């Protein structure tokens, strides 16, 4: 098997991976950097993010306010030392992007413009029309092209981390276009592989969001943290699940039920604000978990609009006017016109909550280091925890930048004075991976259909681990996913050829999703409280005595994973009440 020697291997070339690569190349141009991704970087799901990236920049705003919004939005599960670091670094990262050419929207005087976003007390979301993620990704990718020390390995699927001597020292990958396995021997590995929303049948996530990065670290011994916290974005298209950015509401769009009532006021987010004049942090600008949960309740109550795609509520943007929509929400208009044949200038659009983001992920500290030395993680695949129990919109895009950068700096610190690698041991690990793949190819007595297993997993997650959860449902979810993990060992490939075999890639991705799904279900069952996006009908209150801590799930092979807990770091904001009513101070 080919071996490639490098200094830092980065797995995932989205916003976080690219930012880490650039930071490494700028800080030390002699470092050899391997940027490994299962897709070409421009395809990374960062491109689909729409609304914007938050950073304190206007004179009426402050780091303390951004801190409070984030900690409150996370229902006090965020580690406050991490949030403190984050809010200070955020504007610097966004300015750096601007210097690299990101086409941020501007005020008339040429300074960067900001827009209001959910759960934020002040306007601080930088944006580039409604394609902010797209522009951030392309700015980073194009900027990365000027650094000769970054070598890209596009369409390489990461299979297993190489761990020896208690340290992560590389990764075994498959070159997708040839089916050949190769090893990277590295002094540090940064995982930036994204989230795992595709374990659910209905999400805003692209095909590639299958939790491979999370599963890589998890199987190598790094725990996954807070996996049960899955964010439902309130406004997704009811047929494809495509995202309609929160900016629809930030610019003034309203949510109404079948009777035309702005129902959010019935769920603690009132009083009703004037149409088209949204007030920050209340009504339609409440946090995503509360808004999604309210929509769920309205649907249960029978106030939903029935459509051929199921029960929905309506997002009404007509009052914004055609000019504003074309200027600020052109992608939204195009998506609704193409996929739903609705013109948002003339009609309200039916929407419903969709799985969007995973707050949980590979456990890291504020320096983006996992408990496994040599292994770092950043972006949606990581859980620092910045976002706690619920992420505020526009914190994620800037999280990629802050922690991508931080992971690079931590990797540089780590690789000083490392002992030489034991190549024989690493080769042995790589051979184990080769054997695993060979076994998958040569299996003839498999009884399981890959797409069948995948469907069962998705149905289980949808049914048992939704917006509202119960003990019974979660028990069923835990045992069903556990069963699926066992049955996965007997999955059989229909395509056994070597060139760009997507049957194989989908089978590997299913393995990653099942591992992550087990962490989600087990964590959800164990957390007997309601907090942020984890809501239980049987434990409706938040329980700070028992559960002001992070769920840590540890991989135990085919056995049920082990769960323990890690205290949340509280510095200056003791747990309070999340108040999104109009009278909040």
């Amino acid at each position, binding site marked *: 098997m080919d071996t490639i020697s490098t200094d830092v291997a980065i797995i995932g070339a989205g916003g976080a991976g690219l930012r880490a690569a650039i930071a490494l190349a700028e800080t030390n141009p002699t470092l050899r950097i391997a940027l490994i991704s299962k897709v070409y970087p421009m395809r990374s799901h960062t491109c689909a993010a729409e609304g914007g990236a938050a950073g304190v920049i206007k004179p009426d705003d402050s780091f303390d306010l951004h801190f409070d919004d984030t900690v409150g939005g996370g229902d006090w599960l965020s580690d406050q030392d991490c949030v403190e670091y984050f809010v200070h670094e955020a504007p610097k990262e966004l300015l750096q992007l601007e210097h690299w050419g990101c086409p941020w929207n501007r005020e008339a005087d040429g300074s960067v413009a900001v827009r209001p976003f959910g759960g934020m007390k002040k306007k601080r979301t930088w944006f580039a029309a409604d394609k902010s993620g797209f522009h951030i990704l392309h700015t980073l990718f194009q900027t990365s092209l000027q650094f000769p020390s970054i070598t890209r390995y596009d369409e390489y699927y990461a299979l297993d981390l190489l761990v020896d001597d208690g340290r992560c020292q590389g990764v075994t990958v498959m070159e997708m276009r040839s089916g050949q396995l190769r090893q990277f021997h590295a002094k540090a590995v940064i995982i930036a592989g994204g989230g795992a929303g595709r374990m659910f049948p209905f999400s805003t996530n692209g095909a590639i969001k299958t939790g491979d990065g999370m599963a890589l670290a998890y199987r190598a011994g790094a725990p996954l943290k807070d996996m049960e916290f899955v964010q439902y974005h309130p406004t997704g298209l009811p047929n494809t699940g495509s995202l309609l950015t929160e900016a629809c509401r930030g610019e003034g769009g309203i949510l109404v039920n079948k009777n035309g009532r702005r129902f959010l006021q019935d769920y603690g987010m009132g009083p009703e604000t004037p149409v088209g004049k949204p007030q920050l942090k209340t009504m339609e600008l409440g946090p995503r978990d509360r808004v999604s949960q309210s929509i769920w309740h309205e649907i249960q109550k029978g106030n939903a609009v029935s459509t051929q795609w199921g029960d929905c509520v309506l997002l009404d943007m007509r009052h914004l006017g055609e000019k504003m929509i074309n200027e600020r929400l052109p992608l939204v208009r195009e998506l609704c016109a193409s996929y739903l044949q609705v013109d948002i200038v003339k009609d309200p659009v039916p929407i419903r909550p969709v799985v969007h983001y995973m707050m949980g992920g590979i456990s890291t500290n504020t320096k983006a280091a996992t408990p496994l030395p040599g292994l770092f993680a950043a972006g949606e695949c990581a859980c620092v925890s910045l976002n706690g129990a619920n992420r505020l919109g526009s914190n994620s895009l800037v999280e990629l930048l802050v922690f991508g950068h931080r992971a690079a700096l931590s990797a540089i610190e780590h690789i000083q004075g490392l002992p030489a690698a034991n190549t024989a041991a690493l080769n042995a690990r790589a051979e184990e991976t080769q054997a695993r793949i060979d076994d998958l190819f040569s299996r003839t007595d498999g009884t399981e259909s890959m797409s069948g297993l995948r469907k069962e997993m998705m149905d289980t997650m949808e049914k048992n681990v939704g917006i509202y959860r119960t003990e019974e449902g979660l028990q069923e979810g835990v045992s069903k996913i556990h069963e699926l993990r066992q049955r996965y060992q007997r999955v059989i490939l229909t395509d056994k050829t070597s*060139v760009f075999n997507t049957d194989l890639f989908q089978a590997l991705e299913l393995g990653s999703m099942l591992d992550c799904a087990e962490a989600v279900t087990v964590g959800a069952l164990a957390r007997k409280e309601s907090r942020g996006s984890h809501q239980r009908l049987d434990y409706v209150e938040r329980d700070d005595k028992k559960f002001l801590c992070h769920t840590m799930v540890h991989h135990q092979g085919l056995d049920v994973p082990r769960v323990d807990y890690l205290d949340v770091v509280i510095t200056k904001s003791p747990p309070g009440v999340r108040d999104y009513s109009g009278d909040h101070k």
Partner: protein
Amino acid sequence: MSRRPLVREVPPTSWYFRHPLYLRYMSREITCIFVAAYCVLLVVGLQRLSSGPTAWDAFLTGLKSADSIVFHLLALAASVYHAATWFGATHKAMPIQIGEEFVPPNVISGAHYAVWAVLSFVILYLAGVF
């Protein structure tokens, strides 16, 4: 058991039959033959003019022949098509930005048509048509 990318050849002389847009492009390009031919005719005419009245009269007689009239009709059609496609595309090569807006394409092509009409009128007037 390895890569063997397959390259699909593009037929070098018949590629333009693959799509109506390509055929329109080729017909646009062919008009330049007529434009060039007409320029040659004008140069020949100048040469005949400078060679004295006999040559000039012979040239004028030739212009009235059936072949000449057919050629002129074709050349006129080609030139109009040439100009129309050119005017339609000019806004791409010369965008005019005023503040945050761009001058609409039909204003730019409309201005070209207007100038063409004025020039045509002036030339016809000088030629004694009016």
